[in-house]
């Protein structure tokens, strides 16, 4: 893309991009650290994740203010308008990713002293690895305006949904086996749900990238495999 006649306009757009890149880096690290804190039962690391969320919130406000000011000053058109609208949207999604990572970290703190079956923690860790890969890919796709890569992330999310459904079922089984597992499993269930929702935000970003590059919304229905909403526990004596 050629430069604007007014060079300060390019500087404003570049600043927006770099702020979003910084936000993305923080959010990725928050999710990675929250997961590591879960696996290692590291409450201190979880606390650090909680603390860093403030920085992400401040950056989101900064992006929004800059975007609004650029709209007021430049009255952007076409690809510039899409770029600024996309920056506002993506900043919102990344901020939510940060909130969900923070919430995950809070639950890690809550369950850090409880007995944890490693097998089930391993399932959540695996799901988090997939979500972290999604997050990285979609942020790279955003930086490079790569619709093909964004579309790949968008289509891949159903694997995370499917994994979440299996974790949900597994946790139900643990809880049914021994009521002493309920507290831990409930926290882990919410924790897994937080991570699954981060995956949903990566698909939002993917949709935004498609709009940014093509000017059109992603029309098709995204494949979904989260069946936990329909999963129930069979009551004893009933089929």
């Amino acid at each position, binding site marked *: 893309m050629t430069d604007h006649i007014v060079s300060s306009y390019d500087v404003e757009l570049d600043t927006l991009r770099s702020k979003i890149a910084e936000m993305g880096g923080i959010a990725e690290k928050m999710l990675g650290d929250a997961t590591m804190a879960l696996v290692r039962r590291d409450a201190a690391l979880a606390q650090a994740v909680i603390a860093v969320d403030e920085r992400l919130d401040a950056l989101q406000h900064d992006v929004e203010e800059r975007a609004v000011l650029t709209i007021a000053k430049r009255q952007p058109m*076409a690809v*510039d308008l899409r770029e600024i609208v996309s920056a506002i949207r993506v900043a919102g999604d990344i901020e939510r990713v940060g909130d969900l990572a923070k919430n995950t970290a809070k639950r890690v703190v809550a369950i850090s002293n409880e007995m944890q079956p490693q097998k089930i923690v391993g399932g959540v860790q695996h799901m988090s690895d997939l979500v972290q890969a999604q997050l990285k890919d979609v942020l790279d796709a955003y930086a490079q305006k790569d619709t093909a890569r964004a579309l790949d992330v968008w289509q891949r999310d159903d694997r995370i949904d499917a994994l979440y459904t299996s974790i949900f079922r597994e946790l139900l089984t643990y809880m049914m086996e021994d009521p002493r597992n309920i507290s831990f499993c409930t926290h882990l269930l919410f924790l897994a749900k937080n991570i699954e929702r981060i995956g949903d935000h990566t698909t939002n970003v993917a949709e935004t990238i498609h709009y940014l590059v093509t000017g*059109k919304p992603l029309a098709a229905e995204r494949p979904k495999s989260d069946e936990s909403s329909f999963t129930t526990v069979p009551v004893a004596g009933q089929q």
Partner: protein
Amino acid sequence: MTTMPNIELAKATAAEAADEAVTKVVARDVNVYYGDKHALHDVSIDIPEKAVTAFIGPSGCGKSTFLRCINRMNDTIPICRVSGRIEIDGSDIYDRGLDPVQLRAKVGMVFQKPNPFPKSIYENVAYGPRIHGLTSSKADLDEVVTMSLKRAGLYEEVKDRLTSPGTGLSGGQQQRLCIARAIAVNPEVILMDEPCSALDPIATAKIEELIDELRENYTIVIVTHSMQQAARVSQRTAFFHLGKLVEEGSTEQIFTAPQDKRTQDYITGRFG
């Protein structure tokens, strides 16, 4: 019953609206030469009835030249030669049997700089209907003047001083007087060549509001250097560059997702 997703419904409605639009002005392969200079190259466009079409493009791109072809204003320039075909309601406006004066009554024009006659407000508006013999009595003429001033959104501001000179009005009022003068002869098409470029933002807003009201009854073509104005007032936008019509489409599409790189570069301020 199956429900159609909203986006599909919106598309279908837009498509229906496009089908219903009646073409008022058709231009095919229009070329304009000023002496040896080839100013406009093979311009073909359909201009819909009762809608606002905006022409945008850098200075010297040919948009005003093309606008002036639609009411044969270029006839007044001796070295100017126009080829190709322009039809209004299916009739060739360059037909030798056609009187350009009658054409210009049908196709009114509003210029960049307000240019009221050095006459009273009343006479400015009454002049056209009088020379075209559109009214049969003083009462008729009074009514045409009042209606035209009302339609131009000026009547309330000038009703007590119709005999005052038109040149004594503010810039924005003068421009609305020129619009009243243009619509007094009952035109079907109104051409506007940068009608707000000499006006302050409030007078500009009033003219834009007026354009929005006028499109219910008239086909409007506006040349503007303000992209925001084109985006606000028009339904169709055409981008001209170096004497060529580069891209034409719905205003929404041109300003959010233009197809041609030159259009994109121009509207986003990237032209070197």
